[in-house]
Structure formats: structure tokens, C-alpha cells
């Protein structure tokens, strides 16, 4: 399907006008993230339209399960990022220590050379 054909489908849909315009704008200058952005816009439109009277209720066991699963995944992402960055942070500290030592070696070499030139 061409972007133009897709846009026609969008225009003929029941999505809100602001969503339609946002999608049209995205399609006019597509990049690798365009599909994901369009999907996010459509989902946001759906969410907004269901906001006042959502058939999925907060106390619905199935909804609660979705939230629980999502929270587990989000916590895992946070944990993975935290532990990974902490590891890199420690390695960065080692590098800084190495560089400080290199400074000293450079200074010592300089002193040695100055002495030799005297």
C-alpha cells in the first residue's frame, strides 16, 4: 500500500481530526520510525476515545494482569539499565585512574628529558 493510499484510509476513518493531521504530517516526511509513531498516534487516539467510558475497567482481572505483567517488564528494564550503567561507571573510574597515572608518567618523562637536556 502506498502512503497516499494509506492516507486516504486514514482520512476516511473515524479517528480524530488532530490524529489524522498528525499522521498526514508524518507521512509527508517519513523515516525509519514513522510506522511506530503512526501506531502510537492511533493507540493514543483509541485511548482518548475510550477515556470517558472504557470497557476495560481497572478492577477487571484481565486488565490487572496486563498491568502486573507490564510492571514486571518495566522493572526489569530499569534493573538491566541500572546494573549495566553501574558496571560501565566502575570501568570509567578505572579508566580515569589509568589516565591519572598516564599523566604522571608523561610528567616524569618530561622531567627526565629536561634533565637530559641540561
Amino acid at each position, binding site marked *: 500500500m502506498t502512503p497516499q493510499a494509506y492516507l486516504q484510509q486514514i482520512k476516511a476513518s473515524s479517528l480524530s481530526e488532530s490524529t489524522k493531521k498528525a499522521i498526514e504530517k508524518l507521512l509527508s516526511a517519513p523515516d525509519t520510525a514513522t510506522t511506530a509513531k503512526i501506531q502510537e498516534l492511533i493507540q493514543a487516539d483509541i485511548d482518548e476515545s475510550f477515556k470517558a467510558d*472504557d470497557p476495560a475497567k*481497572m478492577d477487571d482481572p484481565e486488565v490487572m494482569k*496486563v498491568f502486573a505483567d507490564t510492571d514486571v517488564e518495566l522493572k526489569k528494564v*530499569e534493573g538491566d*539499565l541500572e546494573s549495566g550503567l553501574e558496571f560501565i*561507571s566502575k570501568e570509567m573510574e578505572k579508566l580515569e585512574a589509568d589516565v591519572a597515572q598516564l599523566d604522571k*608518567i608523561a610528567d616524569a618523562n618530561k622531567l627526565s628529558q629536561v634533565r637530559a637536556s641540561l
Partner: protein
Amino acid sequence: MKVEKNPGIPTVDDSFEVTAPAERAAIEKREAGASKVEKGAESSVFDAGRARFENVANVIGGWKEKGMSMLKSGWGKVSRFFGKIGKVGKEAAVVALSLPEIKDKAVEGVKSGVERGVNAVKSGAEYVKNGVLDTAAYGAMLAQDGAQFAEAKAKWAKDKTVEGGQAVYGYAAERYNSLRDGAESLVNGATERIRAAKESFGNRINAIRMKRLAAELAREELKQAEGARRVEALKARINKFQEAEKLKSMSSAISFDGSF
């Protein structure tokens, strides 16, 4: 911005670009002012879901800031050393590299320093899969490379050779780039996982919505069918009464004159 291996004159890229427009938007929104959700108005799945993802985007943003701060701090220290090395050939700041020929060889020298031996340091991004850093493998690689570096460092301290200075220079540059690439890849991986989680969340909630709506529709159709049956039954009873009334009325017109 990625730094290529063997980049000619070694460069250390301290930029820390991540591709997270949705995350950035969430952070900007948070910074612009507390949203309705943050004030505790989780009245719907929409609000609650949005609050969950805004919250985690904030956390990820916090870690990104921390990572950037860490890298900038490291960059500050590393760049001072690089600055010193960068004066090679112009002054005797680093005497190990101040031999007469270094002036002409300065550019070529620092380039070959990176190419020589220090390429053992692999990009940290290679150790990140789906936003998870394989710390064991990455740590083993860095430790192995660190041992080689220690040798180069000791050799430079002793020999004060141009090559020694180039080698340690290249080592530090490559290691910094490796760590930066690793951190960048981690944040991008986390951002992608958040996006995927959000997509999955939306899809699953939509499926529940469809199911609930379909059930409600079935109930309404059943009610309508029942209503239609009741309508027909009522119509039949009314007809019967009307017919009965009519018949009753007609019965008054019967003439019993014996002509039956």
C-alpha cells in the same frame, strides 16, 4: 554519533545521543508541570497506563542523565590527558613524544597508535543485547585488554618511546569510546524495550476492550431479541383483545329473528 574504529587521528566522542522521542516528550511534559495523573487522578485504564509509562520514562531519563554525567566526568579527565598528548611536536609537554622526528610524525603517529594493538578494545555496544549488558563477557574483554595496557604503560614509563606514548594514547581513547558506546547502546536498548512494552500494553488492553464490547453487544442483541419477542406477544394479545372487542361489538348486531 558513532566513532569509527581506526578513525585516523584518534578522537573521543563525548556526545551521548539516544533515540527516544516518546521518552523525551514524556520528560518534557513532566518538567512543564505535573499532569493530572501525577496528582493522583488515576481514574481510567488510559490514565493509569499513561502514568505507568511516564513514570518509567522518568526513571530511564534519570539513568540517562546519570550516564551522561558519568561520561562527561570521565571525558573531562581523559580529554585533559589527550590535550597534553595533542601538543606533541609543538612543545615538550610529553617528552616521551618529543623526539625530533615526532613533529612530522605527530598526526601519523597518533593514528598508528590507535591502529596498533589497542584495537583489541571492542565496542561496548557489542556486549549489549536487547538492552542487557553482558557484564561477564565485557568485563573479561576489558580485563584482558587492561593487562595488555598495563604492559604498554610500563614499557612507556621505562622506554619513553614515541610508540609507547601512542599505544597508551590509543588505548585510553578506544576504551573511552567503548564505554561510551556501551552506555549509549544500553540506554537505546532500554528505550526500545519501553516502546515495545508500551505497544504490547496497548495491544493487550485493546484486545480486552474488544472482548468486553463484543460481550456487551451480545447482551444488547439478546435484549433486543427478547424485546422483539415481547413486542410481538404484546401485539398478539392486543390484537386478540381488539378482535374480541370487535366480535363482541358485532355480536350486538346479530338479529335473532329466526332466520339463522
